[in-house]
């Protein structure tokens, strides 16, 4: 099953709309709750990133036999240093993003923690593609702890 959603840059009032629709679909398919939660964290963080950091993009998901394949593509300033962007606490968030409660530099780390495979393709001044795989039966998300 394939689904695609357009994500509009700066559209914070509708941030989470696409992720919410995907959640409904995954629940209707009776997929495991812990898998859905992992998928939702990864998708929501990715969706907010497109809204806050790009000029707009698309979110495409493929529900395969035993996994979810996600491709988030956007046009925008790109990510100059992906390794740096993956560091917890590093953020280029605007004041508007921070006022939404995001921009603490946890978006990409949260995505990484909740996916089984993650590939980020980007460079400064170019588009960004984030490709993720999440298996239905993979381990539960990391436990709650004061990290």
């Amino acid at each position, binding site marked *: 099953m394939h689904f695609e959603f357009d994500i509009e840059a700066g559209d*914070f*009032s509708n*941030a*989470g709309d696409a*992720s*919410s629709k995907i*959640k409904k679909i995954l629940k209707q398919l009776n997929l495991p*709750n812990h898998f859905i*939660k992992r998928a*939702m*964290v990864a*998708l*929501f*963080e990715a969706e*907010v990133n497109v809204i806050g950091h790009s000029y707009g993009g698309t979110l495409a998901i493929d529900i395969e036999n035993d996994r979810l394949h996600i491709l988030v593509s956007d046009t925008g300033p790109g990510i100059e240093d992906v390794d740096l962007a993956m560091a917890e606490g590093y953020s280029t968030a605007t004041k508007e993003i921070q*006022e*939404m*409660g*995001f921009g*603490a*530099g*946890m*978006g990409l780390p*949260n995505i990484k*923690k909740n996916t089984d495979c993650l590939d980020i393709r980007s460079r400064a001044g170019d588009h960004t593609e984030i490709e993720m795989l999440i298996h239905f039966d993979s381990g*539960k*998300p*990391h*436990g*709650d*702890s*004061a*990290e």
Partner: protein
Amino acid sequence: MELEEICKLVDATQHTSSGSYGCKVEKAFSSDLMSDVLTLLADDLLLITGLNNIQTVRTAEMADICHILFVRGKQPSEKMIELAEEQQIVLMSTAYSMYKTSGLLWAAGLAPVY
């Protein structure tokens, strides 16, 4: 902990339909940072926050959080209430600070997520 007890302890008012939509509150987490909230594994928890915008409700939806308690007298908008009703999330408000709210609920036995 029952919803009624939470409201009584922190003098909170409820903005969504009466009842707790079947969720039982076992733990609580206080934060204004939504990405921190998304790191939580626990479900059925109370989110205590001063971040009064629709993204708080969306984050709760994504994280399967059933109760949000806004502190510092924050009042959710109509759009937030509408989304919360749709997702069966309870919204409440207290005039108390986050520190006082967290302390009162902790003292009454509401466990922390960690």
